[in-house]
């Protein structure tokens, strides 16, 4: 985007967030290990939805390549989260159904 002259969405503070060592306290009753992968999986769904919409609407080859590659990575990540949930028995998937 910068190469094409557009303003880019930026986040200057991400390194500081990672490096932050001041106290960090959230009670387990508010969020625990089982709820974290659920939330990440749910957030990944949104990411994949946005990327699918972006690639559907993009017609420039460069853009399609970039988005396609990002989407592939994120979809692989999504697979891993689902696999992880199953491995730990932390599933919250819709019920299995039979034909009426």
């Amino acid at each position, binding site marked *: 985007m910068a190469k094409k002259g*557009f*303003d880019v*969405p930026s986040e200057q*503070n991400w390194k*500081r*967030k990672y490096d*932050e060592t*001041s*106290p*960090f*306290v*959230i*009670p387990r*009753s*508010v*969020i625990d290990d089982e*709820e974290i992968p*659920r*939330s990440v999986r*749910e*957030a990944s*769904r*949104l990411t994949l*939805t946005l990327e699918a919409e972006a690639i559907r609407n993009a017609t420039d080859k460069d853009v399609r390549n970039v988005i396609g590659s990002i989407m592939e990575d994120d979809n692989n990540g999504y697979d891993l989260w689902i696999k992880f949930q199953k491995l730990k028995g932390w599933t*919250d998937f*819709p*019920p299995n*159904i039979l034909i*009426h």
Partner: protein
Amino acid sequence: MNLTSIFTSKEDAISLNLGSTLGLWDVCRNKLILQSTLIIFQKQAQDKDLKNMLQKKIDSILNKNIDKIQKLLKEKGFIIPSEPNWQKKQSDRSPFIISDSILNDEEIAMSLRELTRMTLTIETEALRNAVDLEARELLRDIFDGDNNFYDEVIKLQTDNNWIDFPPYLLPH
């Protein structure tokens, strides 16, 4: 068969269409998952308007939306997505500390807007796939509420100049 009977066959009383069931399930589960995040945001927020907005949202999700979906799914004989610990989450008074450099009011508002986008996407998909009248009415009602909330979050961002919207464009 007249149009009314399409929506009120005998089977409707005990069953839901695949699209309606999955949609209601998906919307309910999304709201349950969001509880933790909204409570973290509410506890972390400093801005009075943001804090109140989050508290109202947490209350309305639980009291209105989740209850209604669970009731409808149960009535039709389906197991429901449930989260038995939400009351504990809300009433927890133990220490809660997150540094502002990790999550501040501006970032809470941006994340809240982004999460609401996901909710609206899931709800529009559910509404698009649902054909049972009861399910459609409930989903439309929930969507209206969340879409109004989305308006409020964008207004709060604009009022506080916490803006991360895409750039303005001109025709070539």
